[in-house]
């Protein structure tokens, strides 16, 4: 099942990885290939693959996985490109952008942008116990109770996972991923 789109995406991811191992920075002048948020988008996309939602989360087998972005979207078109026409767990991916005051429980993945740094605690509280994979790239997000944090450490994106919160919400994160990430506990 080599879809053309798959190959495209793979190349994208591959390029991203290549760039990373090359240890290249983010400056557009230095490397016009991959940006930070392209990598994070790829990471986010891949993350979904390693996560299992509880059965009652979806209305049907074909119900899509909704990825919500709240705040100022740093991805631009990147995440759209990454998730377009993709299936994860045989479900299509839908990207939705939200404002902070909207109901965020309808998505399965939520990316909280840096712009909503102050409201993180409230948002996390709102989503407590709900099977929503909360992600962000702000430092300390995991300690605050966020599930996944995509941290940029020395020119490479590292993962921080608060497994306890994820588990409390009924989300199962694959051990393979856990072994790569730094496990963080809520403060």
């Amino acid at each position, binding site marked *: 099942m080599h879809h053309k789109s798959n190959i495209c995406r793979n190349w994208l991811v591959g390029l991203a990885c290549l760039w990373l*191992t090359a240890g290249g920075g983010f400056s557009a002048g230095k490397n016009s290939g991959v940006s930070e948020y392209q990598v994070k988008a790829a990471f986010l996309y891949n993350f979904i693959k390693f996560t299992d939602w509880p059965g009652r989360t979806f209305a049907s087998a074909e119900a899509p996985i909704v990825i919500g972005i709240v705040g100022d979207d740093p991805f631009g078109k990147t995440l759209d490109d990454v998730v377009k026409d993709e299936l994860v767990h045989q479900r299509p991916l839908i990207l939705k952008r939200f404002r902070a005051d909207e109901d965020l429980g309808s998505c399965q993945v939520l990316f909280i942008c840096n712009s909503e740094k102050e409201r993180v605690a409230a948002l996390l509280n709102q989503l407590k116990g709900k099977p929503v994979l909360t992600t962000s790239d702000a430092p300390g997000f995991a300690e605050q109770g966020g599930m996944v944090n995509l941290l940029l450490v020395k020119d490479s994106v590292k993962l921080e996972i608060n497994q306890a919160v994820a588990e409390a919400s009924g989300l199962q994160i694959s051990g393979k991923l856990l*072994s790569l990430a730094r496990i963080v506990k809520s403060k």
Partner: protein
Amino acid sequence: MNRFRNLPIKRKMLLTNLIISGAVVIAATAALFVFQILNFRTNFQRDTATLAAVIANNSTAALAFNDAKGAAEVVNSLTANPAVVAASLVRPDGSVLASLGDTNSASVLSRFPPAGEARFAGWHLFHTESVKLDQEKVGTLFLLANYRHTFMELVNFYGRVIGGVMLCSFALAMFLSGKLGRILTHPLLQLAETARVVGEKQDYSVRAVASSQGDELGLLTEAFNHMLGRIQNQDAALSLSQQKMKALIHSIDGVVWEWDPRQRAFTFISPQSERLLGYPPERWIGDPNFWNRIVHPEDLERATKAAAEAAQRRQSYSYEYRMLAADHRVVWIRESGVIQVEQDQAVAFRGIFIDVTEQKRAALELAQLNDQIAQTQRQAGMAEVATGVLHNVGNVLNSVNVSAALLRDSVHKSQIHTLLKATSLLRDHLGDTAAFLTQDPKGLKLPGFFIKLGDHLAAEQQVWQKELDGLGKNIEHIKEIVAMQQNYARLSGINEALEAKELVEDAVRINESAFSRHGVTLVREYQDVPRVGVDKHKVLQILINLLRNAKYAMDDSGKSEKILTVAVRAAERRVRIEVRDNGIGIAPDNLARIFQHGFTTKKDGHGFGLHSGANAAREMGGRLFAHSDGPGQGAVFTLELPVAGTDTARSKKSDPAAVGNCHHEI
């Protein structure tokens, strides 16, 4: 193979079990081994694929999130597998995320097959596995494995396993063979031991112990014991029978023998041989020409021929010959034997020698005696005839005597002397004869005297003539009688066809004078009968004897009227001559005995007559029998003779053996 067969049973069983178990184990493990080896590569490939799949699966996150450390951890875990030579996780763009060993060189990389496939090259296996995250390829795992080590390990392993298993199985087999085999071998060994004891000691009273029943060994033991029992019985019976036979052979008054015609020597000779002929049995056995040596040289050829003929005919036989005993005695032997034939070949002669010397001698004596008797009889018969003849001749001679006396007397009284006187007178007067005759008174009387004398002499001559005629007749008669006697005195034995009547008349004639002297009236009753085929001499003798006996019987009776009837009649296909008298008859007790040899009621009788008469009659094919109503009632003797030309008219030489066996014929 024979060596194996001849091993003792325990060892055989052990070896068999070992071989079986060894073979089974080898077969099983070899099968397994072969199977494993055949499938090794497949298995190895599968194992490698499995490994690759696991590693790939575990590398998804590392590849997805580009975590070199995580990837390296996963890849390094492959070091645990000694077969893995090299491995690398490669990003979709071809760059290596993590690697183990040397896969970086392009040459090595190029040998990997497309994703999802594996390729063997010598001892190496190149396996390429796509790492997929949720059906999306995130990288490739290149795995290079070398199965030589594993293979050798496997071989080693199996080798050791087979060796170990075989050792164990041998040990187990030996142990079990010993324990379980005993169940089988013990009774067998026992049985064999029993058999050995029986064979060694010849003791058939031993019995094998049956340790199982119903199975073949039990049956064998039973049968074995059964057989022993039978052998025991047979042995006893045989022993008994042998003893009996020995006793029997010893008790036989003859030499029991067995002779092998192929070896031409005796294979058995009973101990009597020594007693009979003086040669101990050892000399007889095995000496090929012993028999030839002890047979009398004169009889050897005949005996050998007889033996050969008997062998030819393959029948039982008996013949006699002389043997020379050790002390040079001549012994007459009757050899009687049977011939055992197998497949048309004479394989053994078995028989008995009986000493018949005494019998031979006795037989010889008897024959001689019989000859003597026959001769005596013949002589007696002839004597009787001669007596008869003599009687007749005597009687005639009486007449002759009388005639002769008469003649003598007459001649003596003859007037010849007167004539001589007259002639002397004439002589005296020869010169003057005429004067004498006419003048002399004596001379004148002479013519008248001569005439009277002439008449007288003529009359005398007539008387003499008559007497001489009678004399001549009588002499003729005598001549006839003597001639007849001579005729009959010739040796007989020839049968002729004769008239019975004539035979009777001949016999009567011989006794004629005796009849007339004793005042016997002869009555003749002759019928017309066919001729008889008989020996003239014999018949005459018999008839003469019968006639004389009748005469004597009538004499002894004292009756005044003596009637003797001779009759000739036909009876069936025979002719009967009957001599009937009215003499003293025969007492019923004597009727049987009169025909016995030596029986006589006459003072000077010899007793041959009736006995030999009966014999003679039988020899001619006829018979002689008698009947009497009792003492004083007379008797009739009948001589029955065969008609000439019939079967019964035979001429048989007298058989000396028959003498002494005759009884009266009624």
